[in-house]
């Protein structure tokens, strides 16, 4: 038995460290505080996760008020895994941020940068561990507002427009989520998720519940960049500082997908979401369109960061397809891809961050001959790219394999064509970068200029992870399977 206070510290440590960072002038000191806090959040998440793995559920009540009345944190295997993933990747990206941020952001602004970073982390972890629907909305706003600030720190002036675009879209999404939560509250008189689930009328057609579900799906869809609602994402990831792009790509959309899972399975229940409402059909259609169209658009991008931002939209498509298969196997594939993609995309964005650090640009043309000038960086990029395509022995292969199996189980053979086509399209855009980096010589010969070790190390850790989880699937597949079982188990 562990002390449930650990659950609390996971979120409150970054939250209390944020104002402390605001008061400190030195960027280096702020980084040190942020690093200590993130690494402790990560270790706490690991302890909580190992507890949840053996005992099932860990709860924490705020202010001594018991669950349905007070706000409570509630961690089961699903959000335990997400919290672990988010804090682990944040820790690694933060190591990268030290050098990258001091290169991109003026020293006097660095303390505000790390304040926003910590607030964003507190928000993301809060969304993950909370068991209260309104509390979830509050944390969503904390993390979103902080991420608008983080994106606006980009060097390019277009970062401001990108951030503003995201602000408008994100606020609309948050409003939809709030309306959905409000409708649920009006109907059940409670905000605790498990309690809402118990009080939702079962077996009768309920207009309010249907409307609430519709609002929540659209609202969360905006946050996770579900296909037609993804327009904010490419600009936000492209113009944000390198470390922020990697941080958000690997964590923010993943947390939004978790929110979707939580509402669909825990609150509304499987039968209501997929049998009474035609969400399976909607998800599969949107997912397929996302995979094909976003991958196709990615091929024609000139800015490599933008290319992989579109690729993110496509990868989210895979997760949504898995969800739309509305089976345990499909859900397992979704969670697995969520987990694997975080490492892969994090690795790719960090490699691009190294390129931006040394070459000053991530346009495709600027990468000519980069394979010779920055051998380690481009090797990391190549390996992460292979994993993204889904070559055997990589993490990307594992998650696509499970998606295959889930589709075959449903006899949806057409889905195989979509998945293979998506992989081929990603092969094309990864190849465009590789060709430029290895087969073209720069116009004028330049000597080697490899990124410093402080940037390479975190990049390689993520790349290594995206291979490790392709070989040793005990953690990822085992937990994804259990998580899918837990989610489906909530339904009556």
């Amino acid at each position: 038995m562990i002390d449930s206070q650990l659950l609390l510290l996971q979120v409150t440590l970054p939250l209390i460290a944020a104002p402390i960072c605001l008061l400190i002038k030195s960027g280096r000191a702020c980084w040190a505080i942020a690093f200590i806090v993130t690494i402790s959040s990560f270790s706490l998440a690991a302890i909580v996760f190992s507890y949840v793995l053996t005992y099932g559920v860990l709860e924490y009540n705020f202010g001594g008020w018991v669950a349905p009345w007070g706000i409570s944190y509630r961690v089961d295997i699903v959000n335990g895994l997400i919290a672990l993933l988010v804090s682990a990747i944040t820790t690694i990206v933060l190591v990268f941020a030290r050098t990258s941020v001091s290169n991109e952001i003026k020293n006097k602004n660095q303390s505000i940068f790390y304040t926003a970073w910590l607030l964003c982390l507190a928000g993301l972890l809060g969304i993950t561990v909370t068991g209260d629907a309104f509390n979830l909305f509050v944390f969503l706003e904390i993390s979103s507002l902080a991420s608008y600030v983080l994106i606006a720190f980009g060097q390019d002036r277009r970062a401001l427009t990108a951030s503003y675009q995201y602000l408008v879209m994100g606020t609309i999404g948050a409003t939809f989520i709030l309306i959905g939560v409000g409708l649920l509250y009006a109907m059940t008189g409670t905000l605790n998720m498990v309690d809402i689930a118990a009080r939702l009328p079962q077996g009768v057609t309920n207009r309010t519940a249907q409307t609430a579900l519709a609002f929540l799906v659209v609202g969360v869809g905006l946050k996770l960049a579900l296909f037609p609602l993804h327009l904010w994402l490419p600009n936000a990831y492209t113009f944000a500082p390198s470390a922020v792009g990697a941080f958000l790509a690997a964590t923010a959309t993943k947390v939004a997908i978790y929110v979707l899972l939580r509402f669909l399975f825990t609150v509304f229940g499987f039968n209501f979401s997929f049998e009474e409402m035609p969400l399976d059909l909607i998800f599969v259609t949107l997912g397929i369109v996302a995979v094909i169209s976003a991958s196709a658009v990615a091929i024609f991008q000139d800015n490599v960061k933008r290319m992989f931002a579109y690729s993110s939209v496509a990868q989210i498509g895979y997760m949504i397809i898995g969800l739309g298969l509305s089976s345990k196997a499909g859900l397992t594939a979704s969670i697995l891809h969520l987990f694997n993609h975080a490492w892969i995309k994090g690795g790719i964005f960090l490699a691009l961050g190294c390129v931006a650090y040394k070459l000053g640009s991530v346009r495709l043309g600027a990468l000519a001959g980069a394979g010779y000038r920055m051998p380690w960086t481009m090797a990391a990029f190549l390996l992460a790219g292979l994993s993204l395509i889904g070559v055997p022995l990589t993490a990307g292969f594992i998650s696509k394999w499970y998606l295959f199996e889930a589709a075959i189980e449903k006899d949806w053979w057409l889905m195989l064509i979509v998945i293979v086509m998506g992989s081929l399209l990603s092969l094309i855009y990864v190849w465009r970068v590789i060709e430029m980096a290895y087969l073209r010589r720069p116009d004028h010969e330049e000597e080697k200029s490899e990124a410093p070790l402080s940037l390479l190390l975190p990049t390689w850790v993520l790349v290594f992870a995206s291979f490790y989880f392709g070989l040793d699937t005990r953690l990822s597949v085992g937990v994804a399977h259990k998580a899918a079982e837990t989610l489906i188990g909530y339904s009556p």
Partner: protein
Amino acid sequence: MKDNQVLRVVAKIMIPVILLFAFYVQFHGDYGPGGGFQAGVIFAAGPILYGLIFGVERLQSVFTIVSLKILIAAGLLLFAGVGFATVFLGGDYLDYDQLNRDPILGQHLGILLVELGVGITVAAVMITIFIAFAGRQNHR
């Protein structure tokens, strides 16, 4: 606008009343409608009115950006600090019963401190936003 005598005189009469009313809303929030957020906004209305009439520069001689930053952080730290204090005293986060031997007194003290934290941060943020917008010309 400082050339307009009516505005100047009315503002000078109103500002103390606004600030006083803010404190009333703040500390009477336990018993009546009110609380930290509303009080913070009302309090900020005073300095903002002053800034509108006498100019942002004169406002900034009291509310400098540095002091506002400290206030923003201090409010949040007070709130979170009360939470941690209750944890160290052996309860859950923000369990005010722990703050005093008498749990009812503890609840009073807890909500008072937490709302004060909210009030300080909200007021400082409102003034900061006003200065950020109104003071733009001066930064160019």
